[in-house]
């Protein structure tokens, strides 16, 4: 296999910088002439982001992505989104790509040093989707991974995805200094809410005791799964049944005494589903107070959807599900709920009876919906 040389890579980066400065007409792309010339969103995205800090190496029509050092959806949101989107675009079989288009060959974890629970779950979901699409032929090569990254993904259940599990018989070394324990991820299909019941037992195991007010977290999870079933994968998107999944995990940070529960689906996102939902008229009543240019942005749409029940007159029994997500935090009296969907973030924080709501709009969207509950446990074991 002919590999790209360091000299060629340096040339490509230089040309990329020139392009950004308006001094070059085309982005360099190895063997560009061999790829069928056509325009679509995926191709434009790759061309647009190639010159950014995307660790993308291309040989003929095969791409290798090297994950960055740190991945999370807070301080490293932009970088993390870049990589998970690149994986989605390069592994998406539904975009009608011609045979010569770039395909993902490998994802390198060698440089990854730190990854949040939510980023690890999203990454696992994207690789699981890729693995499903190529009939379980992925094989992880962990030789050069950082040991604590191997441990983190092992606890997440990442390696159970693969038929050729390189860690079969692997014994997790007891690390007394390790503060983070993870629940093996749970993967479900539309309507498959019974699996959410598994989470309680797993969380109790890593925390060491039951969690007060658990019923309200489960209620929120059930509504999140119902939303996936009803809205996340509309028929017009031609998503196969195999790909209509949701993913769930939890983590416990012993030193900070914080429990996190993370839910993710790879659907079209809440802002996109609103116009065709039964609550659009009521959402518009909330949005009309905003300037017109803000009415269609994902951040405002998400906020309106979550706060719908608060403003509801009861004339319609729809639209209460997203509000259910807040109850776990409210009943415990502390913690925060974050919802990232497309380009919007909605965060509800409750501390000492003081509730704050923060919304953010992003330039680059998360292709799906990510929900994160984070609570401080009262005692080391509740």
């Amino acid at each position, binding site marked *: 296999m002919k590999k790209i040389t360091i000299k060629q890579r340096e040339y490509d980066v230089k040309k990329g910088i020139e392009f950004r400065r308006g001094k070059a007409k085309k982005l360099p792309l190895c063997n560009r002439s061999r790829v069928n010339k056509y325009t679509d969103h995926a191709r434009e995205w790759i061309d647009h982001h190639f010159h950014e800090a995307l660790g993308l190496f291309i040989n003929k029509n095969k791409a290798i992505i090297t994950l960055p050092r740190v991945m999370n959806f807070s301080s490293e949101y932009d970088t993390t989104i870049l990589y998970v989107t690149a994986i989605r675009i390069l592994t998406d079989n539904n975009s009608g790509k011609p045979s010569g288009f770039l395909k993902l060959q490998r994802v390198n974890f060698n440089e990854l040093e730190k990854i949040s629970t939510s980023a690890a779950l999203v990454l696992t979901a994207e690789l699981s989707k890729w693995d499903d699409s190529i009939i379980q032929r992925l094989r992880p090569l962990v030789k050069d991974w950082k040991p604590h990254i191997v441990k983190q993904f092992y606890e997440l259940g990442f390696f159970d995805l693969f038929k050729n599990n390189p860690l079969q018989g692997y014994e997790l070394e007891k690390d007394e200094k390790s503060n983070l324990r993870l629940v093996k991820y749970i993967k479900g299909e539309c*309507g498959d*809410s*019974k699996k959410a*019941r598994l989470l*309680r037992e797993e969380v109790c195991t890593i925390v060491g005791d039951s969690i007060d*007010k*658990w*019923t*309200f*977290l*489960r*209620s*929120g999870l*059930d*509504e999140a*799964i*119902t939303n996936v*079933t*009803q809205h996340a994968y509309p028929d017009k998107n031609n998503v196969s049944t195999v790909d209509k999944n949701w993913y769930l995990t939890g983590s416990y940070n012993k030193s900070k005494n914080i429990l996190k529960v993370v839910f993710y689906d790879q659907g079209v996102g809440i802002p996109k589903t609103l116009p065709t939902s039964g609550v659009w008229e009521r959402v518009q009543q909330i949005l009309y107070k905003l300037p017109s240019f803000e009415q269609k942005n994902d951040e405002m749409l998400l906020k309106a959807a979550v706060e719908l*029940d608060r403003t509801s007159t*009861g*004339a319609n*029994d*729809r639209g*209460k*599900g997203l*509000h*259910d997500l807040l*109850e776990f935090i409210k*009943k415990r009296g502390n913690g925060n709920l974050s919802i990232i969907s497309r380009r919007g973030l909605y965060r509800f924080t409750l501390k000492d009876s003081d509730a704050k709501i923060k919304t953010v709009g992003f330039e680059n969207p998360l292709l799906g919906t990510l929900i994160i509950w984070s609570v401080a446990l009262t005692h080391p074991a509740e």
Partner: protein
Amino acid sequence: MECGIDAPSRVKMKMATLNIGKEFSIDPVGRYYSDSDASGEKFREEILRKKINALSENEKLTIILDDGVEAYGSSFLTEGFAGMVKYGYITSQELLGKIDIQFSDEDFFFYKEKVIQYIKEAKYNSEEYQSTK
């Protein structure tokens, strides 16, 4: 002299029961048949409606919320309970007069309140029922 007339006896309310966890599902979730195999629509059409219709005049239905059930979402509660009113099977007042919601886990008081709220908010016969089965 004995009068032969008994002292008036109190009218006793008979009680039927519906244990959702045992008689329906420990994982009730979703609104329609297409959402799950333990949806609010299924609960209403196949369990609750029949139980309510089978009650005699002075009979109440005791509904046990929490035997094995972890939680309820609003989708299930609105479609399962308020749907009885929405589709014209019974008025809000009548339904609330016929049910007695019980639980042993104090956290489930929240769901009892939600059931009552959704029943009260529902508009009688405001929609025609069409099965999603």
